[in-house]
């Protein structure tokens, strides 16, 4: 039997077993709609920029729109804190009802049997309809699956985009943003050496570079994308060993090492790349669309901020998807889990995801929302075209390896990438050391 046939049979089986249409007649298996009032806790890390006011606005809307479920938001400030506290709370047997989680985290929680199986809620009377499920962008919904089963629902998803100062490009004689990494290098050199004079292009202290390389997890993710764009892979087929110490891996990081060594790229840390772009110290950078509200704040009225597609590699153009999903924990009562699902359903509804996207820059998770935003936002709001770039890029987005240990591996890989960029190790030595650490983690979990 060919795999297409197996998949088709599996799909039929799912539908036959009450595959989740609230419009279909309820089968004996179908969970009724939630009846008992519950209070749920949602842990998140949407702390900066416009993120916290927007998620608070959504929670208020949800709480006032119905009386069955009351959601209490708990701001855990940032992702590392959210992860540490969730892991600790699982160990203590007191996790929240639901939380934001990356797929790797979800895998980690699932191995501890801490995740709730939300299939029954998806299929419940007040669950998702088939139309709802089809409306989600497929790569995003698939990112929430573990072993083929939907454990999490996409919420704040983003992809990388190229941010650039259009005025600096124009003054330096660059008609358009770079389309591939070769052009990126050429343009960065031009921007670094050009003598800018206008207020929109000249930094306060007169210093400038073409672009930035920051010791920040985003640059590790970007390198992962470049590896794939240059024809490489991150892990082997059965996900038991790394495969990034290849010519594609070396070529991708050596590009950054050369840019830093020649003074074309400013080597910074954390989110200083966003500050550098805002203060006209660099002409362009690649970062996630999730940072749009931060970059915008940094730029202010300084110049015309633009976004473009991430440059293509030698083999393809692709970007790694970032951002988290919503997961529900099994420790909660079935009614609380059901309530958490209804909150997730609201959070990812067309109206909510549209509002979330417009305010924060994250991508809408539903196609209908993106379609709607074409008329309501992308073409009418000054930030619309910039935010739309991410959605345009979505068909080429892919997810990182959905492995529990990949997060830890990424930290180790970043350290070695920085060693290479700083000239402390050769590309082959650095990647070999990174591969060794990541392989150990993959083997010993």
């Amino acid at each position, binding site marked *: 039997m060919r795999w297409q046939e197996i998949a088709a049979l599996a799909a039929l089986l799912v539908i036959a077993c009450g595959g989740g249409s609230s419009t279909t007649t309820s089968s004996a298996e179908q969970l009724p709609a939630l009846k008992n009032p519950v209070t749920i806790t949602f842990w998140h890390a949407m*702390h900066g920029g416009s993120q916290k006011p927007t998620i608070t606005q959504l929670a208020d809307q949800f709480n006032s729109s119905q009386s069955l479920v009351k959601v209490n938001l708990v701001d855990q400030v940032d992702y590392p804190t959210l992860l540490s506290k969730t892991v600790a709370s699982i160990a203590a047997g007191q996790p929240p009802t639901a939380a934001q989680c990356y797929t790797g985290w979800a895998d980690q929680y699932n191995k501890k049997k801490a995740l709730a199986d939300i299939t029954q809620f998806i299929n419940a009377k007040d669950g998702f309809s088939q139309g709802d499920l089809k409306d989600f962008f497929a790569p995003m919904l698939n990112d929430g699956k573990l072993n083929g089963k939907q454990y999490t629902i996409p919420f704040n998803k983003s992809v990388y985009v190229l941010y650039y100062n259009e005025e600096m490009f124009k003054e330096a004689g660059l008609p358009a943003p770079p389309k591939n990494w070769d052009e990126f290098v050429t343009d960065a050199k031009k921007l670094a050496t050009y003598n800018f004079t206008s207020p929109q292009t000249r930094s*306060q202290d007169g210093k400038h570079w073409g672009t930035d390389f920051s010791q920040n997890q985003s640059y590790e993710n970007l390198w992962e994308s470049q590896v794939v764009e240059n024809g490489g892979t991150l892990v082997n087929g059965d996900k038991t060993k790394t495969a990034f110490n290849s010519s594609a891996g070396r070529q991708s990081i050596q590009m950054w090492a050369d840019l830093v060594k020649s003074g074309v790229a400013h080597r910074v840390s954390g989110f*200083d790349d*966003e*500050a*550098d772009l805002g203060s006209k110290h660099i002409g362009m950078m690649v970062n996630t669309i999730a940072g749009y509200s931060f970059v915008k704040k*940094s730029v202010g009225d300084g110049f015309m901020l633009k976004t473009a597609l991430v440059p293509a590699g030698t083999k393809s153009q692709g970007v790694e998807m970032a951002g988290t999903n919503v997961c529900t924990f099994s420790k909660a009562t079935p009614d609380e889990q059901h309530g958490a699902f209804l909150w997730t359903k609201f959070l990812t509804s067309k109206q909510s995801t549209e509002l979330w996207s417009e305010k924060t820059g994250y991508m809408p998770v539903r196609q209908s929302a993106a379609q709607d935003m074409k008329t309501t936002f992308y073409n009418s709001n000054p930030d619309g075209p910039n935010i739309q770039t991410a959605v345009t890029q979505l068909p080429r987005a892919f997810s990182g390896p959905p492995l529990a240990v990949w997060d830890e591996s990424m930290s180790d890989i970043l350290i070695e990438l920085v060693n290479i960029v700083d000239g402390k190790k050769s590309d082959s030595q650095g990647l070999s050391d990174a591969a060794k650490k990541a392989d150990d983690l993959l083997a010993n979990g």
Partner: protein
Amino acid sequence: MTARRALELGPRYLLLALALVLFLFPIYWMAVLSLDAPQTPFGLPPKLWPDWEFNNFASAWKAVPWGRYFLNTVFIAAMYTLLVCATSVLAGYAFASMSFPGKALIFACVLGMYMVPQEVTLVPNYVILAKLTWLNSFQAQIVPLGASIFGIFLMRQFFLTLPKDLWEAAQLDGVGHLRFLLLIGLPLARPALVTVALFHLVAAWNSFLWPLIVTSDDSVRPIQVGLSSFAAADSTQPVLLAAGAVMTTLPILVLFLVAQKQLVGGIAATGIRG
């Protein structure tokens, strides 16, 4: 000063001056950056002269509830320091002056605990607090850290230096251990106790990881967690972050400078060197 003396002292002072620059430079850099123009880039080489933008402090102050963080921290640090002093004095005295079975072994175990990093005990401690429903509270930031190995060790070393005659004389007057400790031992132990208090006050002020894990909202968060929360909210403005860092560092820096003499004196009184 003779030429020979100058030759002898010169390299020492040069070395000390270098060490001084090395230690003071990060603080100076932070101070300069906090007074820079809003769009100054953060990077190398560092800018050595500020633009005197005092508005940065006003902007940073408005961004998060610093007042609340300061009050929380003062309360937590004071309670924590009191608790550590109490446990250090009692345990230090017991290890120095009392005889009980297995004393050496218990003391070795206590010292052994000093080698266990905080990260190892993070999750077990969190689990205990969760069972006690103490998460997101002040006591969660005070009680679990209320016994300090360093404090116990320092107080023990001090009590070991007290002449045995004092205890024997007190015994003749019918004084028990607790009364002796309160009326005679403790007043004599003031220099060491002040050192223990100062060390732990500074530690409480700088405490980050544990409060980060056990707190969930601003009503109980201390200043370092507040600073991290501010950093997450305003990541694109290094000058504001530096202004926030100056605000959180300054009180404890002043306290340290004022109490430096007591700190050194206290350690010297215990007979511990370098």
